C-alpha cells in the first residue's frame, strides 16, 4: 500500500468498540466473575502524616465471611520492595517502598491493610475491625513548609524534604541574558488535578496451580507485571487487560501497589480475589498531577525576540519518592514549545509533602511547559507594548527550518506553526474582536490565542539526560509488536502489543489492516484484550507516552504487510500467475484488470481469503514448496529514525519523543463582573496531527482533552485542608466541568504529514490538554485588562477571578 492507495485510512469509519460500550456489553475487570472468588477492601490512612505504632488484624480476622487480612507486617515479611524506577533515579539514598505503608503513613488514603471476604459488604464491614494505632505527626501541605529548615521529615532517611534538585541547560543562557534589552519575569503556578477516569482501579487475581493471572485495568502492563514478579518472587505471572474505562496516565504507577496486594491476598487465601476501587479512594490515593510553581525570567530584545529563558520549577510531589521527577523530566518533551529560542535553563526541585503522590496526567509536565511559554509570550508583549500574536510569530520555528532540531535534541519532522496561527485567528475572527474591544463597552470579553506541541512516541532513555549515572538504562528507543492473521474462514484478526483504554485502537488498527490486505474493516476484528502471554509487546507497550500512533500503528502495518506477502505468494502459486499481476480487493485475490492474460486460460481468475485459509492451514499438498503454513505474521516495529539521539550525548541532548503534532488554540471568554464566573463563548482549535487514520477518532481525542484542559483552567482540582485532609473526595466537590459548562469545540485540521512515520501520522491523544489551560489564562487576562490584572496561576475559579478584579481595583 502506498500513501495514495487508501480506501479506509483517512475515513471516519464506524467505531468497532462503540456498539458494545453503548449497549452495556463491554467487559471490564468488574464484569469478570470467577468461582470461589473473594472480594477485597483496602484500609487506608485517615491521617496525612503519622507513625504506625501497631497494626494487626484484630477482630477482623474472625469477622463474618472474612478469609484473609494483610497487615504491613505481612507485606514486609512476604514481599520484596519495589525496585526504584527511572522517576526515582534522583534519590540520594535508596528508600524501600512497599505495597502498603510501613512504619509511617504519608498521605490521607495511603493503603495500610487489606481484608478479603466472601462479599464486598462483608469486607467493608470487617475493615472497621482491623486494629491500627497511629501517632499523628505534623502534616506538611505546602512546599514552603516542607523546605523549611526545621520541617518535620517525611522520609527520615533522606534528611530533607527537598528530595531532589537538579537542572538542565542548553545553549549559552548567561550570554543570552547579558545581551538582552530587558528581562521579563513572572511567578507562575499550576495546581493539582486528575483526569478522573470513569473506571477507577480494578484488579482480579486468579492463583491457579500453573500460574498466577492478574486481570487489571492498567495502562502499562509491564509495571504491574514486573511488580508482581519481583514483589512475590514468582515467575509464573500472566497479566490480562480487558476493556479499560479510561487511562490518561492515572493507571500507570500507583496501581502496582494494589496489584501486589490483591495477588498476595490470592496467594494467601488460595482463592481468586477481586479488588475494585471506590471513587473516593481513587480521588485520595490513585495519584494526582503535580502542583508546579515556576519562577521564570525571559531575556528579550525590544523587538520581541526571546533570547533565552531561565526557569526555577518547584514540584510538590506528595508523600512518595517513586515518581519524584516525573513532571520534571517530561518537560524535556516540549522544552522549547514551538519556538526557535536557543538558550534555556530549567532548574528543578522535587519537594515531598503529605499529599497524594503525583502521577502522569494527560500531557504530564507538558501542560506546565506550554503554560510557561505562552504566559511569558503574553508578558513579553505587555512589557514591550507589542501585539501578543506578533511576539509569538517573531519566535516561531519557521517552515524552512524543518526538520528542526531543538537545542535539547528533539527532531521535529514537520509542521506549519504560522499556518496554524493564521487559521485560528481567522476562524475566531481575531481582528474583529480586537476592533470591538477598542470601541469600548461594559462587557468583560477577552480573547487568547496560544500554540503548543503534542509530542508522541516515547523514548524512555530520555531520563538519562538528567541522570547520566543511572546504572540501568531504561528502555531506550521504541519497539512494539503486532500480530495479524487471516483465519481459516477468511476473516482477519489482529493482536496489538499494547492495551487500549478507550481510544478506538481496534477501529484505527483495523483501518490500517483493511488497506494493506484489501478487506473491509467489518471483516477484521481484534483478537481480544491484552494478554502478556499472547500479545507481542516491546518496550513501547504502553497506553501512554502517545505511543500508539507511532509504534502500534507501525507494528500492525508491518505485520499486515507480511501477511500480504504470504497471500500473494500462495495465490500466485494457486492461480498460476506472476504475483505482480495480483491485487487484493474485498477479501478476494485476483488479477489486476490491466495485467497480462492468464497463461492457463481455463484456470480460476480469483481466489478468496477463505479458500486461501483452508489451504494454508489444512492442505499441505497445495502449498508451494518451502511455504510456511498458516497466514499469520508478527512484526516488531521500531521507529526508523530512532537511532540518532536515542541515547543522550555528553551535553544531555536526546530525542525525548519522536513525533511532534502541534495546534493553535483560540479562546473567547466573558467574565461576569459580579461573580467572577468565566464563560467560554467560543473555543477554536486548528490542529496538525499529521496524516489522520480516522478523523472522527482524532476529533474525539481533541474534544476530550480540550474539555479537560478548559475545566482544569476554570476550576476543577484537588484541595487539601491545613491538616492534610483532602476536601475534594467526590466528583461534585472536585468540581469537574459538566457538559453545560463545556463550550462547543470548533476544530479545523491542518495536517502536515510526518516524514518519519509509516503513513505520515503524528500523535492524536492528550494534545489539546496541553495548550488549553494557557489559552484560557490568556483570554481571561485579556478580559480583565480594564483592571490591569495579570493571570499567573490556575485554576481561574470565579473567586480567584473576582479577586483579580477586586485586588487590582
Amino acid at each position, binding site marked *: 500500500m502506498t500513501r495514495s492507495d487508501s480506501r479506509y485510512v483517512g475515513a471516519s469509519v464506524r467505531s468497532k468498540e462503540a456498539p458494545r460500550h453503548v449497549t452495556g456489553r463491554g467487559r471490564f475487570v468488574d464484569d469478570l466473575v470467577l468461582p470461589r472468588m473473594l472480594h477485597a477492601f483496602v484500609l487506608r490512612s485517615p491521617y496525612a502524616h503519622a507513625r504506625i505504632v501497631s497494626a494487626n488484624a484484630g477482630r477482623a480476622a474472625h469477622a463474618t465471611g472474612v478469609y484473609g487480612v494483610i497487615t504491613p507486617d505481612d507485606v514486609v515479611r512476604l514481599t520484596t520492595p519495589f525496585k526504584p524506577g527511572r522517576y526515582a533515579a534522583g534519590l540520594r539514598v535508596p528508600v524501600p517502598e512497599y505495597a502498603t505503608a510501613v512504619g509511617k503513613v504519608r498521605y490521607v488514603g495511603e493503603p495500610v491493610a487489606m481484608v478479603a471476604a466472601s462479599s464486598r459488604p462483608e469486607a467493608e464491614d470487617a475493615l472497621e475491625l482491623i486494629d491500627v494505632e497511629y501517632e499523628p505527626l505534623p502534616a506538611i501541605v505546602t512546599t514552603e513548609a516542607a523546605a523549611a529548615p526545621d520541617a518535620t521529615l517525611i522520609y527520615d532517611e533522606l534528611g530533607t524534604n527537598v528530595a531532589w534538585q537538579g537542572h538542565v541547560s542548553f545553549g549559552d543562557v548567561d550570554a543570552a541574558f547579558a545581551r538582552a534589552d530587558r528581562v521579563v519575569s513572572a511567578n507562575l503556578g499550576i495546581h493539582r488535578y486528575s483526569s478522573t477516569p470513569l473506571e477507577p482501579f480494578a484488579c482480579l487475581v486468579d492463583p491457579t496451580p500453573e500460574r498466577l493471572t492478574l486481570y487489571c485495568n492498567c495502562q502499562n502492563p509491564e509495571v504491574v507485571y514486573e511488580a508482581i514478579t519481583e514483589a512475590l518472587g514468582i515467575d509464573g505471572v500472566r497479566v490480562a487487560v480487558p476493556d479499560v474505562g479510561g487511562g490518561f496516565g492515572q493507571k500507570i504507577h500507583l496501581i502496582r501497589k494494589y496489584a501486589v496486594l490483591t495477588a498476595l491476598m490470592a496467594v494467601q487465601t488460595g482463592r481468586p480475589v477481586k479488588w475494585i476501587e471506590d471513587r473516593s479512594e481513587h480521588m485520595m490515593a490513585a495519584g494526582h498531577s503535580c502542583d508546579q510553581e515556576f519562577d521564570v525570567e525571559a531575556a528579550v530584545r525590544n523587538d520581541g525576540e526571546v533570547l533565552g529563558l531561565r526557569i526555577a520549577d518547584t514540584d510538590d510531589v506528595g508523600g512518595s519518592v517513586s515518581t519524584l521527577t516525573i513532571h520534571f523530566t517530561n518537560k524535556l518533551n516540549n522544552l522549547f514549545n514551538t519556538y526557535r529560542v536557543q538558550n534555556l535553563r530549567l532548574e528543578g526541585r522535587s519537594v515531598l509533602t503529605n499529599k497524594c503522590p503525583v502521577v502522569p496526567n494527560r500531557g504530564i509536565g507538558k501542560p506546565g511547559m506550554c503554560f510557561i511559554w505562552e504566559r511569558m509570550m503574553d508578558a513579553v508583549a505587555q512589557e514591550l507594548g507589542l501585539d501578543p500574536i506578533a511576539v509569538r510569530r517573531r519566535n516561531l520555528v519557521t517552515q524552512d527550518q524543518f526538520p528542526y532540531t531543538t537545542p535539547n535534541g528533539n527532531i521535529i519532522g514537520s509542521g506549519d506553526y504560522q499556518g496554524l496561527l493564521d487559521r485560528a485567528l481567522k476562524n475566531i475572527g481575531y481582528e474583529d474582536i480586537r476592533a470591538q474591544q477598542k470601541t469600548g463597552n461594559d462587557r468583560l470579553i477577552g480573547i487568547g490565542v496560544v500554540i503548543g506541541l503534542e509530542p508522541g512516541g516515547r523514548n524512555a532513555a530520555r531520563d538519562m539526560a538528567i541522570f547520566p549515572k543511572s546504572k540501568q538504562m531504561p528502555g531506550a528507543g521504541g519497539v512494539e509488536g503486532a500480530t495479524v492473521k487471516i483465519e481459516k474462514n477468511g476473516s482477519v484478526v489482529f493482536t496489538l502489543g499494547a492495551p487500549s483504554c478507550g481510544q478506538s485502537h481496534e477501529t484505527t488498527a483495523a483501518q490500517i489492516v483493511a488497506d494493506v490486505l484489501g478487506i473491509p474493516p467489518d471483516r477484521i476484528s481484534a483478537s481480544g484484550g491484552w494478554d502478556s502471554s499472547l500479545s507481542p509487546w516491546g518496550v513501547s507497550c504502553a497506553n501512554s507516552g502517545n505511543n500508539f500512533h507511532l509504534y502500534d500503528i507501525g507494528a500492525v502495518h508491518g505485520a499486515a504487510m507480511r501477511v500480504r506477502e504470504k497471500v500473494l505468494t500462495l495465490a500466485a502459486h494457486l492461480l498460476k500467475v506472476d504475483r505482480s499481476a495480483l491485487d487484493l480487493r474485498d477479501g478476494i485475490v485476483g488479477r489486476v484488470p490491466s495485467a497480462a492474460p492468464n497463461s492457463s486460460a481455463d484456470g480460476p481468475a480469483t481466489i478468496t481469503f477463505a479458500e486461501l485459509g483452508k489451504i494454508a492451514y489444512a492442505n499441505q499438498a497445495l502449498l508451494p514448496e518451502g511455504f510456511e503454513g498458516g497466514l499469520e505474521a508478527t512484526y516488531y516495529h521500531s521507529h526508523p529514525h530512532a537511532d540518532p539521539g536515542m541515547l543522550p550525548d555528553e551535553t544531555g541532548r536526546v530525542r525525548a519523543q519522536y513525533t511532534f503534532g502541534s495546534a493553535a488554540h483560540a479562546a473567547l471568554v466573558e467574565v*461576569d463582573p459580579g*461573580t467572577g*464566573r468565566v464563560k467560554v463563548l467560543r473555543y477554536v482549535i486548528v490542529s496538525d496531527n499529521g496524516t489522520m487514520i480516522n478523523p472522527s477518532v482524532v476529533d474525539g481525542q481533541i474534544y476530550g482533552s480540550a474539555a479537560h484542559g478548559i475545566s482544569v483552567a476554570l476550576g476543577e482540582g484537588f484541595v487539601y485542608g491545613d491538616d492534610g485532609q483532602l476536601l475534594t473526595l467526590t466528583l461534585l466537590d472536585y468540581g469537574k466541568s459538566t457538559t453545560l459548562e463545556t463550550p462547543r469545540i470548533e476544530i479545523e485540521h491542518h495536517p502536515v504529514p510526518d516524514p518519519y512515520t509509516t503513513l505520515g501520522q503524528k500523535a492524536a491523544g492528550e494534545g489539546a490538554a496541553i495548550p488549553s489551560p494557557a489559552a484560557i489564562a490568556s483570554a481571561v487576562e485579556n478580559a480583565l485588562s480594564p483592571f490591569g490584572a495579570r493571570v499567573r496561576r490556575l485554576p481561574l475559579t470565579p473567586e480567584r477571578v473576582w479577586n483579580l478584579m477586586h485586588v487590582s481595583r
Partner: protein
Amino acid sequence: MFPADFDYVVPRSVDEAVAMLVHYGDDAKVLAGGQSLIPMMKLRIASPRVLIDVNGIAELAGLRRDGDRLVLGALCRHADVAASPLVREHLPLMHDAAQLTADVQVRNRGTVAGSLAHADPAGDWPAALLALDTHVTVAGPDGTRTVPLAAFLVDAYTTQLGANELITQVAVGIPPGRTGGAYAKFERRAGDFAVASAGVQVTLDEAGRCAAVAISCGAVAPSPFRARAAEAMLAGQALSEDLLAQAEHAVRDEASPFADTRGSVEYKRHLAGVLVRRACVAALARARGERVDTLHL
C-alpha cells in the same frame, strides 16, 4: 461505598409509618427520595439500622392547589414542581428553585419535604421557601401539627422534627396579584450545591412601589435567613438602582458565612449581595408582568 447492614420496612399509611417510627425510635430513618440519605449511608456518615420507606403511601404524592395555598405532599419530587404550570404561573420563585436543584436524576427522585427535613445550609428549598409563606405539617404519635418554615428550621442539619415524626405536607401561600418572585443561585457548576443563593418575592402597590418584599439568603449562614435589614430598606419604596445597590450592601452585612472549598467568607458575603440584587431585578420584572427566564449565573 456499601452501607452498613440495615432492615427495610414499608408502611402503607402515615399512621403505620408513625407507629414504625415510635417502635424503632432513633435507629430508624425515613426514606423518601433518598438523595441525601443514601449517599450518606454509602459513605457511612449515617448508619440507620432500619429504613422506613414511605414511597408507597399514596396520600403523600404530588402537589395540588387548595384555595390560596399550594400543597405539596411529602413525596412531591423536585421534578413535579419544575413541571407544574400552576407553580410556573403563580410561584415562579419555586419554579426557579426546582430548575436549579441538582441534576435530572436527583430531581426525579428527591423530594421538597426531604430537602427541608435534611436542612442542608446550602440546600435550595429551605432558602427558597423561606421567602414565601410556607408551613410544614408533621405527623407524630400525638397527631399532626403545622409550623411556619422559619420555626421548623432550627440550625444547620437541625429541624423541629422529632424522632417519632415525619413531614406529611408543605403548604405555600399563593401571593395575590402584582407580585413576582425569583430565586437566584450561584453554583460552581451545574448540579452543585449553592455557593450562595437568594429568594426574593416582591409585591407592588398601585403606584408601582414596593408594597411588600421578602428576601431570603441561602448557604451564607448556618441556616437560611430572611434579610430583614434589606427588606426594611426596600419596603414602601420605588425600587431604584441606587436603592437596590444599598440593599445589596446591607445583605453583605447580614450574611454570616463560613469559609470552605466553595468560597471564602468575603466572597460569599459579596455573592449574597449580588444574588439578592439580581433576584430583586428578576422578581420586579415578573411583578410587572414581564417574562423572565430562570437565571443561570
